[in-house]
């Protein structure tokens, strides 16, 4: 077990290192430069050049990369926080500390602060969405799988297939139309800003609902399929022939064995919601990581993109790692192997 963990952590660090450099290299070929984006389209060439010099944007790629890496691990001070840039950037933690991603040039704040705010919001969304998706999917999937071919199975299957084929933005617009525009029961956007009419809690309902609908339809289908496959296994037939009650067969023999495939899917859903819900966050104006990533990419905020990409990679690798551990716990054969 320890060997698996150490092995995965080593791979984790290597992937992040390679990815961070590749990202620097890719952004080298993106059009425009950050200085011109900060100053806007009407700045003269002399002004753009002056700011580029102060931001060190004209240094060679590898120099900038090493500077950024040194800053991240706390070996090199972040020089953009001084008055010389004229951008008013400052970091209360100082210029040199471990985990220093630098400044978001788009927001004019330390990236650590930007991430803390946005990541917290996305985690809230994820916890609610996954917290509701898992029980709903398990109940519906097991019910459909255990009653394969019945009317209940058909209703669940048709509904989940239909919902899976609906893009998130369609579900979002439909929910907004019904519950915000027509009935007026819920707010139409979710800036998580407590106004005099809508609480922060009420602002969470619609985005969570969209994610739950999108996720649970898919996970339900996987659970159903897995349950159906497991039910056809000889050990289940043996359990039934031994005279075990159907509920006992379902809980002790079917559910545990049927969970291996859905666990992967659920972990992928966590990964997706934490780092990839751009559409939902954009429609509801939800201040999370997905919207931030879109804004950073459009602005060309290289340091913020870099930080967000590393976080997305970390989440992906971590969920994969957790998936491997779950396999080990659920399936003794993997442990032995």
């Amino acid at each position, binding site marked *: 077990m320890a060997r698996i963990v150490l092995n995965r952590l080593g791979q984790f660090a290597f992937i992040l290192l390679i990815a961070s450099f590749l990202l620097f290299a890719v952004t080298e070929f993106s059009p425009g430069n950050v200085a011109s984006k900060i100053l806007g389209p*009407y700045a003269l060439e*002399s002004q753009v050049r*002056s*700011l580029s010099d102060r931001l060190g944007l004209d240094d060679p790629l590898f120099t900038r990369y090493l500077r950024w890496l040194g800053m991240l691990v706390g070996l090199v001070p972040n020089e953009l926080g001084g008055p010389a840039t004229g951008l008013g950037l400052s970091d209360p933690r100082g210029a040199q500390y471990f985990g220093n991603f630098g400044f978001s040039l788009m927001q004019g704040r330390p990236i650590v602060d930007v991430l803390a705010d946005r990541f917290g919001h996305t985690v809230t969304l994820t916890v609610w969405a996954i917290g509701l998706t898992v029980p709903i999917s398990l109940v519906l999937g097991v019910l459909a799988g255990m009653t394969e071919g019945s009317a209940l199975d058909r209703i669940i299957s048709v509904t989940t297939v239909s919902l899976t084929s609906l893009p998130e933005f369609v579900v979002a617009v439909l929910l907004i139309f019904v519950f915000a525009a027509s009935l007026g029961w819920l707010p139409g956007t979710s*800036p998580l800003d407590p106004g005099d*009419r809508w609480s922060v809690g009420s602002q969470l309902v619609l985005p969570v609902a969209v994610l739950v609908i999108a996720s649970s339809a898919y996970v339900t289908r996987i659970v159903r399929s897995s349950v159906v496959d497991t039910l056809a296994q000889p050990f289940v037939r043996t359990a039934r022939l031994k005279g075990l009650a159907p509920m006992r067969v379902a809980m002790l023999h079917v559910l545990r064995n049927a969970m291996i495939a859905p666990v992967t899917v659920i972990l992928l859903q966590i990964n997706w919601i934490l780092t990839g819900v751009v559409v939902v966050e954009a*429609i509801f104006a939800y201040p999370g990581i997905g919207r931030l990533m879109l804004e950073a990419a459009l602005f060309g905020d290289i340091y913020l993109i870099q930080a967000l990409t590393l976080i997305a990679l970390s989440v992906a690798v971590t969920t994969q790692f957790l998936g491997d551990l779950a396999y080990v716990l659920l399936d003794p054969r993997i442990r032995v192997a």
Partner: protein
Amino acid sequence: MPTDDQHSYMPQLLTQYRGGRINRREFLRTATLLGASAAAAYGMAGAIDGIVTPAFAQETAPEAKPKGGTLRLETTVYDVKSPAIANTTAHPWIYSQVVEYLTVIGSDNVTRPHLLESWQPSDDLKTWTLRLRPGVKWHSGRDFTVDDVIWNLTRLLSDDVGSSMLGLMKGYMLNEVDTGQTDENGQPVIGHELWSPDAIERVDDQTVRLNLKEPQLAIPEHLNHYQAVMLDPDQGGTFDVGSNGTGAFTLVEIEPGRRAVIEAVSDYWGEGPYLDRVEFIDLGGGDQAILNALISGQVHGAFQVQPEFSSMLEQQKHLTLHDVTTADTAISRMNVKQKPFDDPRVRKAFRLAIDPVKASAVTFGPFATPAEHHHVAPIHPEYAKLPEWKQDIGAARALLAEAGHGDGLEVELVIQKDPAHHLRNATAIQEMLKEAGVTCNINVMPNAQYWDVWTTVPFGSTVWAHRPLAVINLGLAYRSGGAWNESGYANPEFDRLLTEAEAMPDPEVRRGKMAEIEALLQEDGPIVQTYWRKLLTFYDSRVMGFEMHPTYALFANKLALGA
């Protein structure tokens, strides 16, 4: 009645208005530019035409507005630490409530003194004497002084600061200097310095004088450029929570991309404030999110609403539509340094292929008026009415054939992705050009990327914001070597006419000159222009004192929240 301290041209201006040779708008614009206060200008006009108009349309009687309350407004919340490099009209929504301009342009397109008490141009428009409003104090209690003005103007005109004020004013305030450095192509890096040590002259404790290299009519407008707010020199040109200002509010919270909060100060020198607090909410700029928030009552008003959503919001009983006719437009400009647009026949053929009336209707429906391919709007005081522009496909084809494109021509029109009306306008142009044998491919770019190529693509559609005088845009966009001359247009005849127009305070004479300029641009110019758009938004009907401004400006000190 003109007085001794009025500009020498004022009596003639009054005679022209009395004789009906200039309209009311032209009279008000020119009178205020020549140093008359807005109230005086409106008064003089009223004495002639009998129309009683409030000096500033946004001013309702202060006693009619209730005090207190929190207003929640949708806007993009940018990082505003450096107002000098703010590059959108949304930036000043936040900082201009705290730090203020020397002048202000009202929703009626008339410029007034603000932190200034008055301005006085010389007869040749090369010397502008600016007098500060007495009694204005910073929030810290210190007097607002002429030294604050000089520090801010000097700073804005420095290369290192990066303000677009430099491009705006360089023609009459700065000289180019060789920095001694070279760029990666071996070309010398050009810097700038004030053209004279006395260009910004301290006259006395209350007076500063701008001594210009060239005559310039639009000084008061330039002083209201959205970056030209007066910052406290002690704070080094930065702006943040708690920054010192002269405005009606102080910034108490800001999280770019999410929200900002301002709160009223108790001893503001001007009108208001009536509200206790204004919260600016960032909804990511998504049109759908803005629509939803307005319908749900999550915000009391929005920075702007796109016209396609207007009919839906008009059905909401708690919302009121606010719109304003502007000189806001997008021009499809052809880079004259690149083929095939180096040939004026091709440029004119493109214009002849376009019917601005149809293109405007397709793009905005009732929320725009057709343009005439010369970037001078009917609401500009110097606008000259030319014969109506007619689409002529036959003439366009003939010109293209003459230019060697008889077998057809393929071009690419680069446009910005957002808002969606850019694509509607481009599609209309594409279809009309097709009739003339031109295949126009549309390349849609993310907005930020477009600004990387706006001066280099052969054919691109660029948004130009409203400016109160046409000569401002013409100078920036089409003068040879102009700061924002994206088309590379260089025509000595145009330059001469424009320079003459800029030195003419007489709107009647200037209009004659403008007719020549407009005709020249229609014949030889680098643009296809189809519309002038209205700007619109919706506010909660309880909000008092709001009017849509042609450059989106917000005067939060005048707003109140009724029951």
